[in-house]
């Protein structure tokens, strides 16, 4: 053992002994603080907690700064908390009870007369309990009295892609002018197909939308009224019927010399365009009502000839049946009458046909084919 070891051992033993026994001999106790606490009842605690506001949540929370160390311990009041003040309900003023009505002067109500009529049957409203479909159902056309094909509005033009956002240039709105009062009008309600009760169940939506149809060329039969007034409004008076041999010879001579007013067999001038013919077709279609035709007449195609005046008006007396197919004579007659009504009704003030091509539409042959309109 070296001297260093002895010194180290004595030093450590002395240190441990001081640590263990050093405080025993210190008679001055360390000072300590005493806090008084108050005891409250459970009801008071519940009332206090009930009045506390709900904690508010915040989506963004700043990083908390370390709290400064309290220099002085908070003082705790020894007094008991006062119980929360419960809101006292307002006492409504009680009015005096209504006086009992004097029924001595009242007359009993007259019993309503009930007619013994059969009740009107109403369709039961069926409540469908089902999960909400994720796809919307195909809208069903409402069943209405009128079934007619309707043109579909053209879609809005696509926006041109560019880096710079620009608004479309719009013409300046004209100054407001006084608008005369007019009755509100709307096209007659129509559907494009016959919807039976059995077919009214909604179906699933299509996976992709239908391509919109092209808009048919706008046409109004009344547009003829806007035409220049320089054209004759009425047909020239018909040549009086000739009588006698002398007149007959004169007529024959005039015809041979080309002086007759009868139309030439071959039309001259610029021919009709496809869009002009289409406009005429759409105009007559709008008045071709097959709703009251028999099932046999709906199977009958008729070809009808009509002579036209130069102002676009059909000459009713010239409308005649050229041929028919698909039905008997009775069905053909019904189909022809429906076609005749369509030609006359939609003429109104004249079809919008080009005046400079009158020689081409002086005589029109219309084929009315109801194949698409049949009951299927």
């Amino acid at each position, binding site marked *: 053992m070296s001297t260093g070891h002895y010194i180290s051992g004595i030093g450590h033993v002395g240190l441990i002994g001081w640590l263990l026994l050093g405080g025993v001999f210190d008679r001055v106790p360390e000072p300590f603080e005493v806090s008084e606490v108050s005891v409250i009842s459970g009801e008071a605690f519940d009332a206090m907690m009930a009045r506390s506001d709900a904690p508010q949540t915040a989506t963004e929370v700043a990083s908390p700064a370390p709290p400064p160390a309290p220099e002085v311990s908070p003082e705790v009041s020894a007094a008991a908390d006062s119980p929360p003040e419960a809101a006292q309900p307002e006492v409504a003023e009680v009015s005096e009870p209504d006086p009992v009505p004097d029924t001595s002067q009242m007359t009993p109500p007259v019993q309503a007369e009930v007619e013994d009529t059969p009740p009107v*049957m109403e369709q039961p409203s069926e409540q469908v309990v089902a999960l909400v479909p994720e796809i919307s159902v195909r809208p069903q056309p409402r069943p209405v009295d009128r079934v*007619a094909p309707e043109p579909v509005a053209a879609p809005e033009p696509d926006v041109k892609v560019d880096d710079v956002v620009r608004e479309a240039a719009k013409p300046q709105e004209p100054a407001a002018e006084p608008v005369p009062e007019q009755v509100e009008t709307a096209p007659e309600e*129509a559907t494009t197909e016959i919807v039976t009760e059995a077919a009214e169940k909604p179906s699933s939506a299509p996976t992709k939308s239908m391509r919109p149809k092209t808009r048919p060329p706008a046409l109004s039969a009344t547009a003829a009224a806007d035409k220049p007034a320089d054209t004759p409004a009425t047909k020239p008076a018909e040549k009086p019927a000739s009588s006698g041999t002398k007149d007959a010879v004169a007529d024959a001579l005039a015809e041979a010399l080309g002086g007759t007013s009868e139309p030439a067999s071959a039309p001259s001038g610029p021919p009709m365009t496809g869009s002009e013919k289409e406009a005429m077709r759409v105009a007559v279609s709008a008045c071709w009502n097959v709703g*009251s035709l028999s099932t046999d007449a709906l199977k009958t195609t008729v070809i009808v000839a009509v002579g036209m005046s130069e102002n676009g008006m059909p000459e009713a007396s010239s409308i005649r049946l050229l041929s028919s197919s698909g039905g008997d004579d009775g069905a053909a007659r019904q189909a022809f009458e429906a076609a005749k009504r369509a030609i006359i009704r939609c003429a109104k003030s004249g079809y919008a046909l080009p005046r400079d091509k009158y020689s081409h539409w002086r005589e029109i042959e*219309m084929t009315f084919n109801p194949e698409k309109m049949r*009951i299927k």
Partner: protein
Amino acid sequence: MKQTLTLLAALLALVTLSAPISAQSGPLRIEITEGVIEPLPYAVPDFIPTGSAANEYSGNIARVIADDLSGTGLFREIGREAFISQITSFSSPVQFADWKAINAQALITGSVDVQSNGQLVVQFRVYDVFAGQELGDGLQFVGTTAGWRRMAHKVADAVYSRITGEGGYFDSRVVYVAETGPKDAKLKRLAIMDYDGANAQYLTDSSSIVLAPRFSPNGDRVLYTSYESGFPRIYVLDVASVGRRELASPEGEMSFAPRFSPDGQTVVFSLSNGGNTDLYTMNVGGGGANRLTSAPSIETAPSYSPDGSRIVFESDRSGNQQLYVMSANGGESQRISSGQGRYGTPVWSPRGDLIAFTKQNNGRFHIGVMRVDGSEERLLTASFLDEGPTWAPNGRVIMFTRETQGAGGQANLHSVDISGRNLKMVRTEGAASDPAWSPLQK
């Protein structure tokens, strides 16, 4: 590349539309394939009374005509408040411009007179307003004042026929089962009424259950099934005298679902014997029954074709109810129904082109029609319970029974056009079921 093709296609379409048709020769030719389906607007002013005794019939006859025509769904009446000119004389010329102005496409004028012998005389004319001419010739009906409704129906039939080209059905009647009492204890009796619900009368009392009345081809007799003897038996009732007699059938067996042949001499019906039901025919005057089917299944609801050569009926020989067609003399039958669900109560159209039926599928009942070979099946209705179709005399309208759901539900008669449009309830005094439409009255 794609943009170029699109541009070329657009240019081609533009050229096609705007380029002159250089090859046109002769008249301009246009083909019209699409029109509109809407009720035809018409006007029917009050008929002109030729004496004070006819005043009460003047407006009433016009009202019945208007109700008949508008009730078809094919016509729409223009109210008299819209009239520009009035009809003051039956023989005066019509101011077509005034009727064109209110878009009346057809105009019906008429006169009514009560003669000194008490006879009612009704005259009428129909005009095509836009063509400016009369549709057919004027007609006149003579009858008793008590039969003014029938005369109005006859005028409406004539107007309907002239405009549509097919026969009318307004001067017809319907025999049906009138029901009273709660759903689980119904009292049933036979009743007859005009097709529109007017003039309803009872033909039997409610002492026993009656089922399935069917008119004879000329409407003078009715076949029906009654439980009067405890078993279902077939009876023949004379409509005029309300006298009835039982159609002979083997004792202790159930006979039901009778229907006349088109000539009115033969009755086809179902006979149940030993748990098996087959079709039989017998002479309506009596005699032995002729067996048509012999399958170990239930064959019932037979109906003749208008020419009397074939019979359509329902059978469960394939496992569930389906429709079959066979010769009127029996023999091999051919199944015509092919869709899902069960088919029953087939009825051959008086025109011979369609068969109406009841279909049950997915818990719902339908009235439908199909071609006689089973093709082109179309369902016209759908509800909790639709059954028992019967055809109007012109084969254009079907009447049937619709029963509503629940303990408080009741049966009523409905009608529908064969296009599926114009579904409506037929007015009856109370609950009604099992209608049978008569032919047009003579």
